[in-house]
């Protein structure tokens, strides 16, 4: 089985978000970058599926040279080779076009992604790639098993789940509990250094949604503390001040 796993290089979930250059650029100072947490689930499930069925795992990132440590980490976790499309991932259309371009002649049975990137939280790239390649795209997938040429999946829906059967090849956006995050071990880290990391140039430069400025939400006001013995006061505030109940 050939698996392509698409990963993002994003600020750690505990990062403080700030902008520079007149609110036109993300401030990277002091920010630690990681594999997107959902992409980490996709990668972990890919490693498990490879253990069960054999095959190979390619990890792909659309990003500039700074993302290579993140790709190396994915190699250490268990991917066999890495591809970096050398470009700033400006919008989801651009990213999806580049992923589809890499995937179209690759003969992949599975293209695994995260349910969403945690920087731009689009949750759109998997669906776009699916449509570009004429493949089904399902997300958020919580369970994924392969039987022959059929994928059996559970997908989260509002208030529950739906179970699906779809023929390979397909695109899936993954989330927990599809697999447990894997931490690279020493051997994996050593081996990752020898594994191929190929850099390719983008096939196009078309974008459709261009960010012109960023902004931060307004500061939260002070919390009003209420005595535990005076819940009536809270009810009154919710009714009369906030007017929400």
């Amino acid at each position, binding site marked *: 089985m050939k698996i392509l796993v698409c990963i993002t290089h994003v600020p750690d979930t505990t990062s403080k978000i700030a902008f520079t250059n007149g609110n036109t650029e993300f401030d990277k100072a002091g920010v630690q970058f990681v594999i997107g947490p959902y992409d980490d689930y996709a990668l972990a499930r890919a490693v498990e599926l490879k253990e069960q069925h054999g095959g190979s795992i390619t990890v792909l990132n659309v990003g500039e040279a700074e993302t290579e440590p993140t790709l190396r980490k994915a190699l250490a976790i268990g991917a066999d080779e890495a591809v970096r499309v050398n470009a700033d991932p400006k919008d989801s259309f651009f990213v999806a076009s580049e992923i589809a371009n890499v995937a179209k002649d690759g003969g992949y049975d599975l293209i695994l992604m995260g349910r969403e990137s945690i920087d731009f939280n689009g949750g759109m790239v998997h669906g776009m790639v699916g449509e570009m390649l004429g493949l089904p795209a399902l997300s958020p997938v919580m369970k994924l098993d392969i039987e022959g040429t059929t994928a059996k999946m559970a997908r989260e829906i509002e208030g529950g789940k739906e179970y699906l059967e779809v023929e390979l090849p397909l695109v899936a956006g993954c989330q927990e509990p599809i697999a447990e995050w894997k931490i690279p071990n020493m051997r994996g880290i050593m081996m990752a250094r020898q594994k191929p990391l190929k850099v390719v140039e983008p096939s196009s430069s078309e974008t459709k949604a261009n960010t012109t400025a960023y902004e931060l939400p307004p500061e939260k006001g002070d919390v009003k*503390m209420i005595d*535990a013995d005076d819940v009536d006061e809270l009810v009154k505030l919710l009714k009369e001040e906030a007017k929400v109940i």
Partner: protein
Amino acid sequence: MSVLVFVEQSEGEIKKSSREAVSYGAAMNAGDTIAVVLGPAQEDQLKSLGGNGATKVLHASDDSLEQGIIRAYASAISQAMESSGASTLVMAESSLGSPVAARVAIKTGASLVSNVVELPDTSNGFSVKRSIYTGKAFANVSLSGDKQVLTLKKGAVALQEDGSDASVEALNVTLGDADLGAKITSQEKATGQVLLPEADIVVSAGRGLKGPENWGMVEDLAKELGAATGCSKPVSDMDWRPHHEHVGQTGIKVAPTLYIAIGISGAIQHLAGVNQSKYIVVINKDPEAPFFKAADYGIVGDAFDVVPKLTEAIKAAN
């Protein structure tokens, strides 16, 4: 010019988030607001979309659209967009709407933007504000081309409701084999409950509750408020509560008018899922719990004492 709005149902009723999307379409003030509903639906439900601002409702009643198969829906909506000549497609974010939006954008060559939080500015091109970094920031995005697909966050516009009716027209769609290739074998869905992403009030609890057997008081409070119940990640990881109640960066992002957090410490990943709430109440026995910094109202106290008292006080006040 016109705006097409994809409308979903749940348990035979139009979803509130879809009604909000229709109001958004109408508020764009860009000609007709055409709602499109797929699969079996009640006539009165369809008509009632007029009250939210729809000038017309298109309805494709095909049985093959009874289940929400993403590719089939994407083909049907693309056909509706072409036949109606709409330049903008709007819908509420959901497990069906979002993947449909992605596919329709590619099929129709439209620009796509998700997590939209406000009406667009069309004075010079088409630009719109979206939430990014899990609600920790916003981006103003300028869209190219003459077609747009927007998926909305809850609360992007106020729900309009004036009780008027819209006319309903049949929509004919043609579906291919590939559209129906994914087989939905079964669904597991809580019924008769307020859905978490749709809820105006959410009562959520964390590890401070000690065990699943103690959720009765959370459910009682939720019931009294007509609220949905949520939880922190460890709670769903330990299977105290179902996964679809998990709120946060790696779970559901909620945007209620009121979020009540009980025995949740307020880790940054949890806050990322609730920072679009209008008001936050925190009940925690530790005065140093980080959640208080993100709260509007706080009570330092033992949940087992405070929560039942609060439920009683609300009952008495109603």
